[in-house]
């Protein structure tokens, strides 16, 4: 641990001095994704109509990481059409044309800049998957006004070692530059597993949009396991800035259900 200071908490059955990153519930080397309670939106109306939009002001001074859910669609970052240092815009683009139905949005804005490089220290990143057993001991930090000794509701806690909180390994920001016939930003994760990640792109270096991997059009993002690279592809014409948020979480968990259709 950096400079010998800090806190690590391992899962039951693991020695905190040797546990791999995924075997830790918490390390003070890694920022937990922190939800700003003053910037949370619940059931915020998004008007009907093709490309109708709403803009919220956050004034954080940087484009923040955000998660968005839609009453109509579930987790739905597609509505996010601009994230900049002052505002976020949601656009009713669920269909390419016609009268899109109204919707209700729930969003969390996190105190994590997506335009600033950050790289947490690797402690021991061996790919052991967490969640093998409930903790017999642990720690918990209650929210202000909540009693950590009495509540069993996870919503009352900032951290509770019966749950894992999403933690950040890296924010990788860089220019999207010409590469052959397209423009790309290429990043190679330094974790020994395929990490969960999110990607953003700003054609004007200011207003970011989230990227999807399965998109048939650019800009898009993809990951290839052979080259072990995450690639933002902005297409043949546009350059700009890309941002990749890497979580300390393997993509392929051991908690697997198999279904045959």
């Amino acid at each position, binding site marked *: 641990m*950096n*400079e010998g200071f800090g*806190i690590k908490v391992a899962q039951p059955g693991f020695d905190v001095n040797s546990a791999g990153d995924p075997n830790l519930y918490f*390390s*003070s*080397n*890694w*920022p*937990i994704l*922190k939800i*700003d*309670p003053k910037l949370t939106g619940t059931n915020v109306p998004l008007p009907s109509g093709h490309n109708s939009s709403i803009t919220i002001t956050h004034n954080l001074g940087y484009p923040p990481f955000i*998660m968005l*859910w839609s009453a109509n*669609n*579930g*987790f*739905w970052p*597609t509505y996010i059409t601009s994230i900049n240092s002052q505002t976020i815009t949601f656009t009713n683009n669920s269909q390419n044309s016609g009268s899109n139905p109204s919707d209700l949005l*729930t969003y969390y804005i996190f*105190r*994590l800049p997506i335009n600033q490089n950050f790289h947490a*220290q690797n402690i021991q990143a061996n790919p052991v998957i967490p*969640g*093998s057993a*409930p*903790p017999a001991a642990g720690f918990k*930090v209650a*929210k*202000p006004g909540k009693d950590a000794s009495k509540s069993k509701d996870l*919503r009352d806690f*900032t*951290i*509770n070692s*019966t*749950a*894992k*909180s*999403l933690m950040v390994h890296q924010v990788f920001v860089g220019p999207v530059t010409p590469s052959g016939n397209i423009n790309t930003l290429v990043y190679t994760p330094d974790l020994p597993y395929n990490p969960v990640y*999110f990607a953003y792109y700003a054609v004007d270096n200011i207003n970011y949009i*989230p990227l*999807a*991997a*399965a*998109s*048939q*059009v650019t800009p898009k993002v*993809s*990951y*290839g*396991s052979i080259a072990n690279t995450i690639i933002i592809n902005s297409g043949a014409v546009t350059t700009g800035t890309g941002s990749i948020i890497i979580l300390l979480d393997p993509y*392929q*968990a051991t*908690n*697997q*259900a*198999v*279904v*045959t*259709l």
Partner: protein
Amino acid sequence: MTFGVKIALPGFDARTATPEQCAVDSRFDTMKVKVDPVNPNFGNIIVKFQDNPVIGTYPIYTINHNYGYIPLYYFFFSVRDSTANTGIETGNFFPGDALNFIYFQATATATQIIFQLVVTNTSIEALSGNTYAFRYYVFANDGT
């Protein structure tokens, strides 16, 4: 703050660190995923398509969370077996994104979430006989 916990990231002083410079600041909530070996609140769902799959809506996984409220959840395509010998691709394949032969939907209540896969086009070569994986999280965060 009067009470609470702040743990600064390496190189910062917890007494003066901003929220962005902290690993933990108890004034701020987090996305929590319950560790539950019986009803895993996060994991992968592997879907194996037989040859000639049929158009329809298929429940593929049910989580009995029993939170008493509808939790937020996150579900995305995580691994796709490639047919072009380029290896495994992962990524945030958004729920309604342009894999134009399948998409995802869910029925969520205060006690359970049923993840469903909707097959809309079976003529796509990439679907028949292939295996796809999906990643899910159910957060102990109120979505109502």
